[in-house]
């Protein structure tokens, strides 16, 4: 029998239904796997007792034929989701000892569907980063290494811990959040599937806020089908999030396998950036052929404001972050560093509690929102954001989905790009536009770089067209037949 940690969610679901193994056995195997992958530093908190208790409940529900959509499936949770009674850190020193007295809507829906919680995964501090290097809890290591090079690599970020544990076979799936690429970029770097749903598809309630007009939760899995299964459990309207949209949640899995015959696939000519490795360009062209072979029609499109997406993002996201992070004041939760008076206590707490990248972004955000600069920076960025959305709206008049690379490079080494914030920001060049436009995007592992690292291709769709996006992604997945494995897994540890 295949090791239980090697299964997809769909296979585990079938095995549990047939009684081939119990949820308790599945949870035990994953609790051991979580321990085995400790060298990756991918978990901030492990919750083995909770996992076993939840699995026992799942076994009872399976026995009495009350199994939910994710009954008995062991998952890892990005430590940005508030979990009742379990330390929630956002990867930051300033949330020291914070134990939420409530549960985020998305995780509550997962538990209601029967999922089993393995622990809380490491991330860039407040989800600000593309490398997982900014976490107060230390960097996460990518389970992949370059061929013939033993230097540790980053798993991408900000959902780096979630990506690493799914790739290393320590969880059947994980959840992340994506503000500028934080699900899709680490998924691409780690050789897994990562889906950012349409803004408003999943509730943001109980997720530690970074940039509220951009943040969106989504699944990270080892197959497109698994992402479809998880999204169904995660999505839905929530009265507690005024931006969550009241639309029915379809059975995404049922959309897989739809024919692509006649589907129009847009190829944006602006998605070729200077210095992009030839391997990524070749893989992208390979992707065009895969879509054509499946009966889709390729259409060259133009998204003329693409080059302005990153600078727009780096005004809007820090601006929203600077107001969201104003709540960390040493009064209501987390770290407090004393000062001579109230003001000095705030300043000392925030200086000690926030890491370098977070301080930098809060200051940029404060600057672009300050009197005299608000119009020139913040309103300007919001106007360019409207143009970027309009680019997509125009393109989707002629095409059904857009095919693009997920990232402009494969995973880089720990410590690289740390001195130059802008070089780091360029990681998100292909992912940020979908966030600014609120559109769904999925990264699918599609090939390997010259030095043996995973590369992803991305499908972007119309708002709330996750079914089309996932069906196109499953065709890419089948054509690519990505079967490479990282050198380090729970089984090999």
């Amino acid at each position, binding site marked *: 029998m295949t090791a239980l940690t090697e299964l997809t969610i769909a296979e585990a679901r079938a095995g549990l239904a047939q009684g081939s193994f119990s949820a308790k056995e599945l949870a035990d195997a994953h609790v051991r796997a979580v321990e085995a992958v400790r060298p990756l530093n991918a978990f901030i908190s492990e919750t083995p007792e909770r996992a076993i208790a939840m699995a026992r409940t799942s076994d009872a529900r399976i026995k009495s034929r009350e199994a939910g959509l994710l009954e008995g499936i062991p998952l890892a949770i990005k430590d940005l989701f508030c979990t009742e009674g379990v330390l929630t850190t956002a990867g930051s020193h300033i949330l020291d*000892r*914070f*134990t939420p*007295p409530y549960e985020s809507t998305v995780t509550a829906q997962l538990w209601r569907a029967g999922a089993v919680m393995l622990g809380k995964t490491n991330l860039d501090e407040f989800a600000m980063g593309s490398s997982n290097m900014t976490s107060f809890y230390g960097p996460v290591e990518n389970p992949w290494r370059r061929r013939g090079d033993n230097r540790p690599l980053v798993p991408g970020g900000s959902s780096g811990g979630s990506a690493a544990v799914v790739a290393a076979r320590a969880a059947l799936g994980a959840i992340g959040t994506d503000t500028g690429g934080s699900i899709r970029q680490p998924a691409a770097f780690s050789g897994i599937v990562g889906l950012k749903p349409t*803004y*408003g598809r999943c509730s943001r309630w109980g997720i530690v806020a970074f940039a509220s*007009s951009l943040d969106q939760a989504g699944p990270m899995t080892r197959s497109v089908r698994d992402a479809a299964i998880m999204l169904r459990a995660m999505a839905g309207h929530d*009265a507690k999030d005024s*931006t969550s*949209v009241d639309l029915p949640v379809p059975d995404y899995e049922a959309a897989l396998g739809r024919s692509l015959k006649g589907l129009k696939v847009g190829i944006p000519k602006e998605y070729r950036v200077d210095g992009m490795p030839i391997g990524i360009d070749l893989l992208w062209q390979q992707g065009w052929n895969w879509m054509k072979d499946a009966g889709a029609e390729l259409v060259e499109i133009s998204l003329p*404001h693409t*080059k*302005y997406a990153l*600078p*727009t993002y*780096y*005004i809007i996201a820090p601006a929203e972050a*600077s107001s969201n992070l104003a709540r960390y*004041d*040493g*009064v*209501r*939760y*987390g*770290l*407090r560093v*004393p*000062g*001579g*008076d*109230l*003001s000095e*206590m705030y*300043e*000392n707490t*925030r*200086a000690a509690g*926030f890491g370098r990248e977070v301080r*930098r972004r*809060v*200051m*940029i955000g*404060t*600057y672009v929102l*300050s009197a005299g600069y608000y119009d*020139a*920076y913040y*309103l*300007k*960025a919001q*106007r*360019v*954001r*409207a*143009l970027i*959305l309009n680019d997509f709206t125009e393109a989707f008049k002629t095409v059904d989905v857009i095919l693009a690379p997920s990232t402009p490079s494969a995973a880089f080494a720990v410590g690289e790009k740390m001195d130059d*914030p*802008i070089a780091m920001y360029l990681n998100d060049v292909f992912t940020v536009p979908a966030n600014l*436009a*609120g559109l769904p995007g999925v990264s699918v592992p599609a090939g390997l770089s010259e030095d043996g690292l995973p590369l992803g291709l991305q499908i972007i769709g119309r708002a709330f067209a996750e079914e089309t996006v996932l069906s196109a992604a499953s065709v890419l997945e089948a054509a690519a037949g990505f079967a490479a494995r990282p050198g380090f897994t729970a089984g090999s540890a």
Partner: protein
Amino acid sequence: MSADEATVRKIARLARIKVKDEELAPLARELSQILAWIEQLDEVDTSKVAPLASTVDAKLPRRQDKVADGGYREKILANAPEGVAGFFAVPKVVE
């Protein structure tokens, strides 16, 4: 626009983040570099474009102005660095 040390001091004050004097110059350099990079947006003609704050165009939902939830004082105070007699405690602000 580049940020000088006085600007950094002012932003840090507005953001309530203590910045040591020796950190002012490097921070001014970093912020200036980022600001110079984002100023490429000036190339874009936005004179006829309205600012976009959200991609969700639904009207903000309304509800009755009634208490729907609450009564968690103890649970909330349990996370406070300092709580006294059912309140959050802060350093003295009035002598």
